[in-house]
């Protein structure tokens, strides 16, 4: 497939407080002789101290985007084929192995969805917690014990001294996720990438973990990329939002803009299809029709057009570029939903 020229955020729009800038990122996987483009021309930036949410369903490319930032894409079959990732002005894709190792767990920390499979079951919590600090030369194992206790205390694990000796299976899911967060925080990262950090947890524990993340990022003035499919979580914790569909950003804006005046039919569809706690019952949900896209077999033009109630001929032919709605608000859609949907 030919790389189509896509609208990037123009240089003039890049703000001085930008910490991470992703430009036209393209990540492909080879599968049965075919190439599947999991992330297809994604551009966004993360500003200092802010929380950016990436929202999307399975197959939307949100996790692959996150993995690409730290170059954690398994290769083969995966490969970053195009684009630019600038962290604090440094080109991540051009870094050598040593430089990228310093970045991982150092300036950029990643918190994964499944705390059980992300930890080593045969090493103690203390050993795993001190590992990033040893790797990044912040002292030897002995002198780091106090720091580990301090970290566990920060993530509010009761009785931290004795927990250092515990193995992951001795902790509950919520506790494990707290340890994961402590590991992420160990080297004072400037950017935390949290990939569905609470999906496997109960709602009360979810609230505790997210409050903790918000607190800690605020205290350290760190930025966060929060990957989730839960629109409620997004509304509570994110300042800006990327909505992804079929490997592309379809809408981008502040949380207020996305929730109050969504401009992409997919975003509109998501908002209408979720049952909400803050609305009286009555009336039916309005689902998005059809099935989620098959990345190996995407339709021509806009990938959402087979499910879109407003699709017109142009949508079936040409892929819409990301265009500015206003200020921070961008959308990739040929249709002006304010014209076809008077109540928006």
């Amino acid at each position, binding site marked *: 497939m030919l790389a189509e020229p896509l609208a990037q955020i123009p240089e003039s729009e890049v703000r001085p407080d930008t910490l991470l800038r992703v430009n036209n990122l393209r990540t492909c996987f080879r599968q049965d002789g075919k190439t599947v483009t999991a992330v297809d021309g994604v551009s966004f930036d993360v500003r200092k101290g802010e929380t950016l949410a990436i929202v999307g*369903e*399975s197959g939307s490319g949100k996790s692959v985007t996150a993995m690409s930032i730290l170059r954690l894409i398994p290769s083969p079959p995966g490969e970053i084929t195009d684009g630019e990732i600038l962290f604090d002005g440094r080109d991540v894709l051009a870094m050598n192995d040593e430089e990228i190792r310093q970045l991982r767990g150092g300036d950029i920390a990643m918190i994964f969805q499944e705390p059980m499979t992300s930890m080593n079951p045969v090493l103690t919590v203390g050993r795993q917690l001190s590992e990033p600090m040893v790797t990044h030369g912040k002292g030897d194992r002995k002198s780091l014990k106090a720091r580990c206790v301090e970290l566990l205390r920060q993530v*509010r694990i009761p009785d931290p001294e004795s927990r250092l000796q515990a193995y992951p299976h001795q902790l*509950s899911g*919520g*506790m494990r996720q707290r340890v994961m967060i402590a590991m992420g925080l160990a080297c004072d990262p400037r950017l935390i990438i949290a990939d569905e950090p609470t999906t496997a947890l*109960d*709602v*009360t*524990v*979810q*609230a*505790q973990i997210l*409050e903790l993340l918000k607190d800690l990022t605020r205290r350290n003035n760190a930025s966060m990329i929060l990957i989730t*499919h*839960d*629109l*409620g*979580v*997004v*509304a*509570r*914790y994110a300042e800006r939002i990327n909505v992804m569909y079929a490997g592309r950003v379809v809408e981008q804006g502040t*949380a*207020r803009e996305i*929730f*109050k005046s969504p401009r992409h039919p997919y975003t509109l*569809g*998501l*908002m209408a*299809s*979720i*049952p*909400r*706690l*803050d*609305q*009286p*019952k009555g009336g*039916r*949900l*309005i*689902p*998005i*029709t059809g*099935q*989620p896209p098959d990345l190996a077999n995407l339709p021509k033009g806009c990938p959402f057009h087979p499910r879109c109630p407003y699709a017109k001929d142009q949508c079936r032919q040409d892929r819409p570029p990301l265009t500015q709605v206003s200020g921070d608000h961008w959308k990739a859609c040929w249709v002006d939903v304010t014209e076809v949907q008077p109540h928006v």
Partner: protein
Amino acid sequence: MSDNDILLEVENLKIHFPLYGGLLGHKVTGTVKAVDGVSFQVRRGETLGVVGESGCGKSTTGLGVLRMVEPTEGRVILDGTDLTVLDQKALRKYRRKVQMVYQDPFGALDPRMRVMDIIGEPLLIHRLHQDKQAYKERVHGLLERVGLNPNMADRYPHQFSGGQRQRIGIARALAAEPDLIICDEPVSALDVSIQAQVINLLEDLQDEFGLTYLFIAHDLAVVKHICDRIMVMYLGHVVEETSRDELYDNPRHPYTRALLSAIPVPDPDAEASREFDPSLDGEIPSPLNPPTGCTFHTRCQYAHEACRTVKPRLRETGDGGHKVACHLYDPEVSDVRAEDVMTDRLLAVG
């Protein structure tokens, strides 16, 4: 309400699992009280929601109704018949009336069976078809009814998406012409855009066939949408049971209130004005060794002396059959009154 309206009655259901230990693993070293004295009624045509966090016993309650796990104690009365005393053969007849839709649309369908055989199996087991032609027509009709193309009947489960597989699971449940369907987290494994499709389908089928649902879920927003009455469970006990509107407008049990406050609402402005309840710290205790008195007292900000010693009863408070198991609403046990200690700041949910 006449007795005729009640399709399912569960009385003091207890499901305890023995824990084996010792050198050879034959010694019973403990008991997990997964469900510990649960009673409820489901009226014909209504949807009763069962909510709670993992380990609260909601799924085990569902399995106990069907005797897929044997209850330790209690009665399950379906349409006037006590299922707990039936032998396996007699039980089978009643099992047709109660079908189940599972959470995991990948694990619930046999990967080696064609969709035709998956949906048709209940017809064979309960001898609900006349001949081969009728069987085929019935399966095709069911597929069509759940929104799938009858041409797909010869495919295998892996050829379908998660949402489509859940539709197949629903068609299989419908095949037996049940009165009651137990839905155990039927949409939580699905993508957000697909959840609404399945919820709408369940609602349509209920209207069309007069079905009764026991709807087990952890998502209070989904439950609010689909259920008529809701019971909240915590560590094997029912802590609150009432109509949907009462539960969301006027939640009484501190656990229900904490749950509601923990769920973020998809509206940034509303979220900015809501406060997070820091009191619900910690996690659900181990059911192997539950707290004494009220099992929630270890996490409850209103816990006082009575809560640590006396087990609260599920009793009606006020009007409209609003049941709650909390000493704050039981003047016979405690002097501490709910209206004196609770504030409403946590519940600024429209």
